[in-house]
C-alpha cells in the first residue's frame, strides 16, 4: 500500500499546506499568466457571443448538411471532461478508493466549470437563443411542452440534473474544508465569508456522521449520472439515422471516452498545480500512476469503440455506413480521423505502458494533452460525418470559422 501523503504530513500540516494556498493570496507567476490569459480569452468569448447573438449562427462555417459544428463538438467535449469529477467523487467513493481524496476537490470543481462551459455551447448554437427556455417544460398559454421524443430534450434534463447534483455534491464535500479555512482565516472578512459558507461546521462527531451519510447518499445518487449523462449525450447522435451516428455502441463508447478525457483533464490540471504550489506531497507520483492506469484502461475501451465502428460498418453491409466510413477514413476529412487515432490511441496507449511516463510530470502532461486533443477530434470526426451521408449530392464541406470557438477554454483557465 502506497502512502496517500508523503513526507510525514499530519492533519495540521496538510491543512496549512492547502489553506495557505487559498488564504495567502500570493500566487506564483504561473497563476498570473494562466489567469490573465484566461481572462483575456473570456473577453474574446464575450465579444464573440455578442456578435453571434447579433448576427446569427451564420458567422460560423456551418451549413446544410453540416448543421452542427464546433459548438456541438465543444459541448460534448466539455461534458465528457466533466465526468471525471463525478467518477472520482462518487464511484471511487463507493469503491473506497482512498487515494481519491487528494484530487477529488479540484476534480469536482473542474466538473462544475466543465459543465458550465458545456452548457454555454448548446445555448449559443441555437438559431434563436432567446427562446432557450422552450426546451424546458413550463406552463404556457400555447399549451406546448417540449417534444419528449427528442434526444435534445433528454439532454436538457440530463445536463441540468448533472449540473445540480455536481454542484450540491461539490458544496457538501467542501463544507469541512470551508470550516478549516474559516478557522485559519487571516482577517475578519475571510472569517465571515467562510463562516457563512461552512454552515456552522464544528467538526463534531455527529457532524461527521451526518456528513458521511449525506456524502454517501449523494455519491449513490450521482453514480448513475456518470453513466447516464454521457449516454444521453451520445443519444444526440445515436438516435438519429445519420450513418455512423446511428449505432448502439455509442453510449458505452461515449462514457469510456468521457472518463478518458476527464481523467486526462484532471491530471493535466493537477500536474501544474502540484508543480507550482509545491503540493507533490499531496498529489503524489503514485496518484499520477493510478490515474494514468485508469486512462490506459479507458483508452483501450475507446479504441475498441473505433474498431467496432469500422467493423460494424463493414459487417453490417449497409452502403451508407460503409460509404461514410470510407469517406471518414480516406475522404477529405480523413486527416482528422488519423489525428484522432494518433492523439487518442497511438501515442497515449503506447506511452502509458511505461511506468516512467506515468510518473514523469512532463511526459504524463504531454499524454494528457494528447488525449484531450484526441478526444476533441473524436467529436470533430463524429460531427463532420454530416458532410457525408446518404444522398451523394448533398455532401458539402464544413468551413470552420474561428469566431466564438476559443471562448470555452477561457472559463476553464479560471477554474483552478
Amino acid at each position, binding site marked *: 500500500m502506497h502512502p496517500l501523503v508523503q513526507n510525514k504530513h499530519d492533519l495540521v500540516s496538510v491543512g496549512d499546506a492547502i489553506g495557505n494556498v487559498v488564504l495567502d493570496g500570493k500566487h506564483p507567476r504561473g497563476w498570473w499568466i494562466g489567469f490573465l490569459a484566461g481572462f483575456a480569452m473570456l473577453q474574446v468569448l464575450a465579444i464573440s457571443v455578442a456578435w453571434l447573438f447579433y448576427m*446569427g449562427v451564420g458567422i460560423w462555417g456551418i451549413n446544410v448538411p453540416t448543421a452542427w459544428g464546433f459548438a456541438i463538438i465543444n459541448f460534448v467535449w466539455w461534458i465528457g471532461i466533466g465526468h471525471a469529477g463525478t467518477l472520482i467523487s462518487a464511484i471511487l467513493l463507493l469503491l473506497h478508493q482512498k487515494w481519491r481524496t487528494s484530487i477529488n476537490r479540484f476534480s469536482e470543481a473542474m466538473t462544475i466549470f466543465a459543465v458550465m462551459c458545456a452548457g454555454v455551447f*448548446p445555448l449559443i448554437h441555437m*438559431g434563436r437563443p432567446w427562446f432557450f427556455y*422552450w*426546451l424546458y417544460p413550463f406552463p404556457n398559454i400555447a399549451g406546448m411542452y417540449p417534444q419528449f421524443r427528442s434526444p435534445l430534450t433528454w439532454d436538457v434534463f440530463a445536463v441540468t440534473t448533472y449540473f445540480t447534483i455536481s454542484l450540491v455534491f461539490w458544496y457538501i464535500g467542501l463544507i469541512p474544508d470551508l470550516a478549516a479555512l474559516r478557522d485559519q482565516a487571516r482577517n475578519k472578512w475571510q472569517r465571515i465569508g467562510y463562516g457563512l459558507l461552512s454552515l456552522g461546521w464544528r467538526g463534531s462527531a455527529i457532524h461527521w456522521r451526518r456528513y458521511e451519510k449525506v456524502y454517501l447518499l449523494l455519491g449513490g445518487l450521482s453514480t448513475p449520472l456518470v453513466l447516464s449523462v454521457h449516454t444521453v449525450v451520445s443519444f444526440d447522435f445515436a*438516435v438519429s439515422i445519420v450513418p455512423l451516428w446511428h449505432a448502439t455502441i455509442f453510449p458505452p463508447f461515449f462514457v469510456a471516452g468521457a472518463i478518458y478525457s476527464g481523467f486526462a483533464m484532471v491530471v493535466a490540471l493537477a500536474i501544474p498545480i502540484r508543480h507550482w504550489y509545491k503540493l507533490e506531497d499531496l498529489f503524489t507520483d503514485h496518484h499520477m500512476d493510478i490515474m494514468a492506469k485508469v486512462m490506459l484502461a479507458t483508452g483501450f475501451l475507446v479504441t475498441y469503440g473505433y474498431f467496432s465502428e469500422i467493423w460494424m460498418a463493414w459487417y453490417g453491409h449497409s452502403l451508407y455506413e460503409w460509404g461514410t466510413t470510407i469517406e471518414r477514413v480516406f475522404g477529405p476529412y480523413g486527416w482528422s480521423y488519423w489525428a484522432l487515432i494518433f492523439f487518442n490511441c497511438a501515442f497515449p496507449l503506447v506511452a502509458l505502458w511505461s511506468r516512467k511516463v506515468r510518473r514523469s510530470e512532463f511526459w504524463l502532461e504531454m499524454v494528457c494533452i494528447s488525449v484531450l486533443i484526441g478526444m476533441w477530434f473524436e467529436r470533430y470526426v463524429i460531427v463532420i460525418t*454530416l458532410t457525408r451521408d446518404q444522398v451523394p*449530392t448533398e455532401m458539402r*464541406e464544413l468551413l470552420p470559422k474561428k469566431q466564438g470557438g476559443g471562448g470555452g477554454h477561457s472559463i476553464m483557465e479560471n477554474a483552478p
Partner: protein
Amino acid sequence: MPPEANDAAAPNPPQLWRGLEEYMDSPAFHEAMANEFPEDAAEWTDPVSRRNFLTVMGAGLALAGAAGCTPRPASMRKIVPYTRQPEQMVPGVPLFFASAAPLAGYATGVLVRSHEGRPVKVEGNPDHPSSLGGTSAIDQASVLDLYDPDRSKTPTRSGTPVSLDEAVHAVRAQLFDATGQPKQAVRLRVLSGAVTSPALADRVAAFLTQFPQAKWTQFEPCGQDNVREGTRRAFGRDAAVNYDFKQADVVLSLDADFLGDGPGHVRYSRDFAARRRVRDSIPAGADGEYVKPENMSRLYVAECMPSQTGSAADHRLPILSGQVEAFARAVAAKLGVAGAPAAGTLPDAAQKWIDPLVKDLQRVRGKSIVVAGDSQPPAVHALAHAINNHLGNLGTTVFVTAPVEARPDGKMLALADLVREMAANAVDVLLVLGGTNPAYTAPVDLDCAGAVKNVPFRFHLGSHQDETAGTCEWHINEAHYLETWGDGRGHDGTVAIQQPLIAPLYNGRSAAEVLAAVTLAGDTDGYDIVRAYWRKRFADEKRAGVFEQFWQETVRLGVVANSAAPRVEKPTLAGGWAEGASPAYPTLGADEYEINFRPDPTLFDGRFANNGWLQEVPKPVTRICWDNAAYVSAATAKKLDLDKDFRWTGGERGRTEVSVVTLTYQGRSIKLPVWLLPGHPDGAITVHLGHGRERAGAHVGNNPGQGPNAEGKQVRGSNAFALRTAATPAFGTGAKLAKTTDHYLLACVQANWVMTQVDPLNGTVIDRAPVRRGTNEQYKTNPWFAKITPTAAGETALISQNIPGQAGARNPESGTVRQRGTQYGPDHDHSNGNGNGHEGHGHHDDRLVPLTMYNPNDRLYPDGSRGPGRRWAMAIDLSACTGCSSCMVACQSENNSPVVGKHEVTRGRDMYWIRIDRYYEGTPNEPDATRTYFQPVPCQQCEKAPCEIVCPVAATAHSADGLNDMVYNRCVGTRYCSNNCPYKVRRFNFLSFQDWSTESLKLGRNPDVSVRSRGVMEKCTYCVQRIRYGEIVAEREHRPIRDGEVRTACQTACPSGAIVFGDLGDPASLVGKWKAEPSNYGLLAELNTMPRTTYLASLRNPNQELVDALKR
C-alpha cells in the same frame, strides 16, 4: 412659422391664398400655376378603362403596401377598408390575369396571380400553345424584374432626371419642324429587339410611313438568325418552322437544345415528355400524355456544349460545333437526300453513328424529326429541312408556317449595317426602343458603343440604366410587361395579349406608347393602341361576332383565337437549298480550340443580370451559379494542367477553387475561370454570354458584396461578348487557352460527383442509386427493376410495401407483371374495403398518418361524417425531367425564399426548397459515354419523418393530412432536424438572408407565405397555402377537392409535366396512379421514412445497333 400680414417677404399678399408658395408669390408657384398638368402627372385619356381601374387600384395598393412597411407594430397601423370595393376584389383572395411574358420578341402566354393588385406569381397559360401551362425559369423570374430596385425610375438626360414631357418633346423636336410637319431630311434610325408584337409592328409601320427615310433595325444577340436564314434557303421564302414532338418516334438534334432554349422550348418539353413517360397501367389518354415502353420515342443528339436536350438524349454524340455540318451531310448522304453536298471527314465516333442512325430514321419515315440548333449555320438548317423533306416529315411532324416575326430579317447583319452608317456619320437621330442592349451585346468588332457616339441625337427606352442608356443622351424608363398593354406571338405565331396587372410603378412607357407619343399619332395609351389595333384587325379579318365580345374574351383568355401563323401546305424545297454550304472545317492546331458562344441558360444575353433569382439558380447542366466559366473536357483540362482545389475540405458542394485562364480569340482576350464539364468534347471551349455586365444594377449585378470576378471587376462573371465577332457569333476556330496562376472561387452547388463511389479496399463500386435508371428493354423484362434498393435488395418487397401508395401493388418479387385492367387497378371493386377484389394483392394502403397526434377523423365535414382521408403526395417522373430549374425559381417565387448571394452559396447555404440533383454515369474521361440524370428533390414529406422526432420543441410535426409541417414561430434553431433528414432538404436561415429593407421587393412577396427571419429552419411545404386554399374553396362549395385542383408551384411550372401532386386518399387520383406504376420507387425508402414524394425511374430508349456499333 405661420405667415403674418406684415411679412416682409410677401409684398403683395392676396386675400385668400391656396398655399404657402402662392402666399410667398414665388416664381416657381407662378410656373406651376401656369402648367395645367404638373410634371410627372399622367394624363388619362380614358377615364373608365380597365387600365384606369388598375392604375388607381395598383398604385393605391402599392402605396398602401409601402406605407405598411413601417416598423410600427401591427396594432398601431391604420387599416383602411375600401370605401367602394373594386369589382371581383376580395382581400385575401388572389385573382389571376392572363398576360404574355416576352423574351427576345417571342411571347409565352402566362397567368399572373395578383394579390390585392400586386402581381406576385407567374404561371403558364394552359391555353397558350407555347406554354400549355408550363413556364421557363426566366418566365418565372420575370415578376422579380418588375420589383427590381435598380430599375430605371425616371426619364433622364445625360443621367440627370427630367420630366417625361421634356424627353418626349426633345424627340418630337427632332422629328417635326416648327409647323408640326415631319422632317423628311433627318436621317432617322429605329433600333429595337426582335418584334413579333402585331400592335407594335403596326405602330412601327405607321412610323415608317410617316418618315419614309427612316430605317428600322432589329437586333437580337442570341436570336433566330440562323434558323430564319436556313429556312429561307430551304424553302425559298421567309418561313418559320415548328415541330410536333408528340408524333415523332425518332428525333435527331443537330446541336439543337429544343428542350432548353429558343421560342417554344417549353411547349416542346411538354410534347417530348409525352413520349417519354412510360406507364404500365395508365392508358395513353386523349392528349397522349403517356406511352407504353415500346412506343417510347428515341432522341439522338449531336452537340458540343452539354445541354438539357443532350442530357435527356438516348444517345449523345459530343462533337465540335463546326463538325455538326459534316455530320449532317453524312446523314443526308447516307439517307440519299437528293442534292446534298458531299460529306467531309468525320471523327471516328461520329462515323460509327451514321449507319445505325440512318437505319433508325428510315424505319420511321414520316414520324421523325431532324432539328438543327440556333447556333448552327444556315446550311445545317437547310440540310435538316432537306432530310425532313426526304423522310416525309414535312406536314406530319415538321410544320412550315408563315413567319412569326413582324419583319423577319437578319438581326446581326442589320446591326452591322446600322453601325456602319453611324460610324460614317450618316445617322442624325437614333431611337433605341427597348428590349435590346447593343452597347453590351453587339459583336465586339463592330464597336457599336463607339459608333453610337457619332449620332447627334440618341434616345433610349429601357428598363434599366444599362450600357446602352449610358451611351444615349435621352432616356425614358420602360414599363415592365406586367405594367403595360401589349401583345406578342408565341413560337407558332399564336398571339397572346399582354395585359398589365399594375399601374407602372415608376410611370414607365412601352415602346408602342413612346412611338405614339413622339409622333403625336392617335392614341398614346397602351391600352388604346392595342385595342385599336385589334379592332382594326378584327374588322380586316372579318371575324364573326361583336368586337367587344371578342376583345373581352381574348383578354380574359390571354390568347387570340386562331392567330397561329398559317401553315404552308405542301412545302417544297427550293432549288438552291444546298448552296452556301460552309467550307470544310479546318483541322484544329495542337493548342487551338473551337470557341462556342452560347446564351446563358438563365441570364440569356445578359438582360437578366440583375435578377437575383436567375443569378442564383444553378444553371441546368453545370450547376454553377453567379458566374460563367470556360467549359472544357477532361482531356483539355489535363492538357492545360488545370487546377481544381477544394483545399483540405473536399468541397463536393458549394465551393470550388479553379484555375483562371486567359481565353484569346482573334486577338482579344478575357480572363475567366475554367470548369471541367463531363460530356464536353475535346478541343472545344464553351462560354456563356450575358455575364460581366458593368451596368447591370447595384443590388445584384454589380453588388460589391459578392466579390470581384476573375478579372478583378465588380461584375458577375466574365464578359464573353468581348470576344464575339459578327462573323462568328456562335462558334469559331483558333481560340487559345492559357492557364494563369490565378485561382477563382466558383459557386457550384454540385461538383462532379457521380452516383457511385469506389470502395478502396476491393475496388468495387458502391452505387447508392439515388436515380434508378434503365432502358425500356429492361423495363419490358422487369418493370419492377427500380424498386430494388441497392442497399437492401433482399428486402425489396417489404420496402416497397411501406412506400405510401404502394401497398395495393403486387409483390414485385413474384416476377410477374401485374395484370392490367380493373381487377387490380386502383379503381376496382371494393365492397367493404378489405374484401372483394383484393385477393392476390392484399389490402389497400388506407393508413392515414401512422404517427399523427391528431384525430384521423378530424376531417373536412363538421357534422362528423367521414370526409376523404386526404393523403397529399407527389410523384416525379425522372424520364421527363430535363433539369431546366423552372421548378426551383417557381418555388422561390411562391414561397418567398431569399436570394443569399454567391458568398453564401459557396458556404453551402442556398435556400432552395426544391433542388435539382444532377448525376453523371460513366467516367469524365469519356465524353461519349457520359450520361446525365436529373433528380428534383423537394421535401419527401415522410410519413415517418426523421426530422420530427428529433425536434426538441415540436416545431416540425405532422398534420392530419400527412404533411410534415414546419412551424416557424416555434422553431428555436437547433438544426437537428436538418442533420437527421436523409434527403437534406431542410434549409436554415443561418443569417438574416431576407431583404427586409428594400421597399419594392416587399410588394412582390406572396402574402400567403411567412417571410422567415434568421435562426429558423424552413423547407418545402407541398405549397400548403395552396392546399388550404383549395380546401376552403371546396368546403364552401360542399364538394370534395377535385383531383388536380391543388397544384404545387413546382408542378405548375414544370414544362415537361414531370411532377404530379394530389391526394392518395382519392382512389382515382393521378398521383395514385403514378405511384401504382411498377417503376415508382422511394428515394432512400430503405430507411423506412415512408416518403410521400416518390420517383418514377429514368428510362432511356437506346438503339441497340448503335450501342453495338460504338463498342466495336
